[in-house]
């Protein structure tokens, strides 16, 4: 508005970018620089490596095209164990943390004596370093000294060699992940619950709606946008989980609980083939980018329908 007055006095020089564009660029410049150096550059390095013969004893780094991609995609372990594991882990982890997180958020949204203390206790998993939690959970499920087997035997059930069997090991990993992330969901959903308008709830109370119907027809639809954001963010993170699995099972027993990031790490550092590991990581990245777009589309439609 004031700009036009200034422009009359000084005919504008032709610039590549207008004032608005320059402002926009400056706003994102620091963030873009950080991304360029510490994310895009490493990703490019990895992508470049995945097309080459990048082993320690071949300094030439010959270009080999899609050899590593073909290897990974035809590896039965990757196609039939690693990818199903990853998807299964993502779905179960997100679904359980969402349900439990919502339950906790509803609980904390009530008023009861000691609520502040309970809330602090429920947030404990957010405060503990995940790696320490994972080490401790592995220790708790140790077949000889672990407290879980001690308790099981006390009750008269046989103790399990938890980490030596595929599905028990997978359950332990899932338990650790859900324990770690439920408070995160609870926190975001609680914030969402507290920002909901009061009027619909008062109207429902006057009409004598049951708790279930209030929950089903008021709380859930109004929380949908928050839930969508939570689900998308967490689904992406769950897909690329590394440290918990690595600490608890290292992908074992016999590589049966590997997620794709564990597979990439093992190929890169234990099989000493950085190129093949990078190729596996690139394939995983491509899968999650596509998946994330689908999830976002679907959930976005679901959230908008409610409006």
């Amino acid at each position, binding site marked *: 508005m004031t700009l036009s007055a200034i422009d009359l006095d000084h005919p504008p020089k032709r610039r590549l970018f207008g004032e608005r564009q320059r402002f926009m660029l400056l706003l994102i410049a620091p963030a873009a620089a950080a991304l360029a150096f510490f994310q895009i550059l*490493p*990703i490019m390095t990895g992508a470049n490596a995945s097309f080459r013969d990048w082993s320690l004893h071949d300094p030439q780094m010959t270009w080999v095209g899609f050899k590593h991609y073909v290897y990974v995609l035809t590896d039965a372990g990757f196609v039939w164990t690693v990818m199903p594991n990853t998807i299964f882990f993502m779905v179960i982890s997100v679904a359980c943390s969402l349900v439990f997180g919502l339950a906790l958020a509803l609980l904390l949204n009530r008023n009861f004596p000691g609520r502040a203390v309970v809330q602090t206790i429920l947030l404990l998993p957010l405060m503990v370093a995940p790696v320490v939690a994972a080490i401790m959970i592995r220790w708790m499920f140790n077949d000889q*000294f672990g407290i879980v087997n*001690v308790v099981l035997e006390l009750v008269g059930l046989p103790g399990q060699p938890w980490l030596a069997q595929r599905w028990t090991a997978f359950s332990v990993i899932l338990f650790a992940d859900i324990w770690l992330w439920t408070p995160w969901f609870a926190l975001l959903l609680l914030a969402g619950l507290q920002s909901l308008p009061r009027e619909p709830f008062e109207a429902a*109370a006057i009409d004598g709606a049951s708790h279930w119907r209030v929950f089903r027809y008021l709380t859930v639809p109004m929380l949908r946008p928050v839930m969508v954001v939570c689900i998308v963010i967490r689904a992406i993170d769950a897909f690329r989980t590394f440290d918990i699995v690595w600490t608890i099972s290292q992908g074992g027993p016999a590589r049966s609980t590997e997620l794709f990031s564990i597979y990439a790490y093992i190929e890169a550092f234990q099989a000493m083939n950085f190129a093949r590991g*990078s190729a596996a990581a690139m394939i995983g990245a491509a899968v999650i980018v596509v998946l994330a777009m689908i999830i976002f589309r679907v959930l976005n439609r679901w959230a908008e329908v409610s409006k």
Partner: protein
Amino acid sequence: MTSLPQLGSSIDALQPPRKGFFAALAPGGGRILFALVVIGVAFLFAFPVLWVLLTSLRPASGVFYVHRGTEFTLHNFVEVLQQESVYNAFINSFAISTFATLLSLGVTVTSGYMLSRFRGPAPSVWFAIIYVLRCVPYISWVLPLFFVTRQLGIFDTYWGLLLPHVAVHVCFFSWIMKGFFDGIDPSMEYAALIDGCTRWGAFFRVAMPAAVPGLTALAILCWLYTWNEFLFALLLTSHKTPILTVVMAQFVHELGMEWHLMSATAILALIPALIVTIFGQKYVIRGLRV
């Protein structure tokens, strides 16, 4: 903040007599059941941490039978605090977490503002870049990141860990910040522009103060995240810059199975996080209300 208890009580006051399972959870009906559920859930969530605490109080000989022993000692804490690497790791972790939080917020607040306030191809492209980069698994860029920080000569320094942390947070925080600014009415900024404020002035003096609750919430979450982060610290630091999570993991990986020392360090590491959470949680919940 105060609206909620009021909301709950006003509904309760208006409620017709309850029936069914949910009635059992309500005060008046089955207070005891409700209390039991709450205590049970809280216990389940606290158990692994309680177990760490219990282990940290046992002498070295007792850690294999934590549930059985009756001897307790504070010696583990003394022993841990006498180790120079633990002491340094505390200082390093604290510095890294604090500076990473400040830097990440400073960098992303402008980026989120841009995403929220402008329409057109530039913000869409920027959002697409952020969304795609957010999806790329850590594993595919942490490994090359090691080489990159070496090349830049910042491996095993504060900068070598700080800047990658900032890069991690750019995508997620920009997205969340966009949400904060979307919730703030831009008409005040237009008014400031009309009154002769520059775009930067409108951003710093009008938009930023309105976003402070959201910024506080993110700052707390970011600090906790960085304090507890492991993978980057493991790969991007070495002897010169020991980081707390790595030092803790080393107690049970490299130096033999010293569960008692790891637990003692973990409990000490939990204290700052606990303080931040106890004082910060209400700001987090308030700030994340979009």
